[in-house]
């Protein structure tokens, strides 16, 4: 029996979609989310002051995303609607990061399987608790997989390399300035330039704040915080040339969406 022209196996279609999404996500810059002693810190190199990668969803819930702006902006708006309508229907304490992560997962998963093009986004939903044990960081990929991260998460750009550096420097219960230093170390390639302060988007979910825990750090406040951080240790100059490698998708087995959490 001859194959009809244009036939592609479901495995092939999924693989192509996943490759497409991965390449799109890897094209941007990385975002780092990590726990510190008073809550959760978000750091994103972002040259735009108006188009945010990090934002507030609800009292205790923050959102960070990489990939195509219009796509994750839709996710963000949908998440705010979900949170506000649940908080209004029941009580403000009844809005949870887990519920939001599940909502995103089901929608991302459905779009991945049903649409021709999957969303080229990866998002983190983080929730701050009354104590460090109540903190939660959920990372969601374009196919709707949910990862319950412990302590830190990195996504976008050279995510694997950033995650490796993050893992190396991360410690539990760091102060805010230490955590910011660790995040910047992770976002800087060995021997590379640090992202300039004016191109940093930084926000925290601070459990000690009243009412709404989310707060952006910018301007003088961010300068002071960076100044109070320990000076970066001299890093050995990188052996390879400064030229950035062309962006490619991270290596690894192809995720066809069937893998468990």
């Amino acid at each position, binding site marked *: 029996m001859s194959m009809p022209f244009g036939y592609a196996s479901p495995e092939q279609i999924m693989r192509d979609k996943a490759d497409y999404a991965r390449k799109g996500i890897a094209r941007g810059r990385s975002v780092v989310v990590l726990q510190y002693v008073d809550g959760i810190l978000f750091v994103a190199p972002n040259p735009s002051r108006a188009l945010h990668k990090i934002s*507030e*969803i609800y009292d205790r819930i923050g959102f960070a995303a990489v990939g195509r702006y219009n796509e994750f902006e839709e996710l963000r708006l949908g998440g705010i609607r979900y949170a506000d309508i649940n908080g*209004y229907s029941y009580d403000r304490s009844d809005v949870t990061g887990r519920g939001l992560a599940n909502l995103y997962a089901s929608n991302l998963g459905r779009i991945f399987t049903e649409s021709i093009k999957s969303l080229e986004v990866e998002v983190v939903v983080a929730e701050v608790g009354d104590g460090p044990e109540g903190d939660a960081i959920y990372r969601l990929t374009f196919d709707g997989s949910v990862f319950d991260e412990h302590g830190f998460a990195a996504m976008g750009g050279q995510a694997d390399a950033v995650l490796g550096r993050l893992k190396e420097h991360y410690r539990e219960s760091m102060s805010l300035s230490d955590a910011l230093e660790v995040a910047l170390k992770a976002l800087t390639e060995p021997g590379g330039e640090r992202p300039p302060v004016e191109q940093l988007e930084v926000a925290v979910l601070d459990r000690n704040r009243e*009412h709404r825990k989310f707060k952006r750090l910018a301007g003088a406040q961010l300068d002071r915080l960076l100044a109070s951080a320990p000076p970066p240790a001299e890093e050995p100059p990188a052996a390879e040339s400064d030229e950035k490698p062309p962006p490619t998708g991270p290596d690894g087995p192809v995720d066809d969406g069937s893998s468990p959490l």
Partner: protein
Amino acid sequence: MAKRDLPTGLVSQLFQNTGSSSFTDFVSAYAPELLPRRDEVLATPIGDQVPHATTIVAATFAGGVVMAGDRRATSGNIISQRDVEKVFRTDDYSCMGIAGTASTGIEMARLYRVELEHYEKLEGRTMSVKGKANRLATMIRGNLAMAMQGLVVVPLFAAYDPDRDEGRIFSYDVAGGPYERERFDAIGSGSIFARGALKKLYREGASADDITMVLIQALYDAADDDSATGGPDMTRKIFPIVSLIDADGFRRLTDEQVSGYVRQMLDERLISPDGPIAPLR
């Protein structure tokens, strides 16, 4: 996932842009049953059978605004609650106090808070003070049908305006508004007496501390002459709620702070029961 008790159609429509940053518009499109019904016809007006909140006062000081409310709720001639709260934080730089039907007012304050926050999160900016005041007017107007049947609610809105570095006060009537008030205003059954006191005691450019004292005095004068307004309850340690908004944002004074003002006022009134005497000329 679709079974999270969300209104029908919400999950599938969730990612659609409604084209508006208003939470009320969004809810009325997707889950109208969650909003208070404003068009019901009651068999008999129930005005006297549900608790009513009474007097709220507000006044500006140099660089901010203070709002205070008594703690009494009444149903007809019965005191239905001694420690009701009717001054609400609506966002970091604004608050509202309610007079009239307590339940309707509390519900309105809850919706209004979400409304302001929803806009702020979607748009990435804080709504202008005038915008906030207009939004509240729309909500009051929506309640007009119920107000005609006895469920009247009239708020007083106060906010810090960062563009002008000053506090602003807006009042409303049952059909909406807003009416911006210079210096001070009072609403509720005791407002006539409170406004009289405010008129004599208000000082232009006074400190937050002085203005707080002015409001405590005005509330006492309202409670003195209006049976529906509660005075400070020393035996139960129930004091007026005082909220202060300035460039640092909203904060509610603690009971210890308010009791300090109340005690000082009561000590002075032991000598002069009608309160401070304004200079005649």
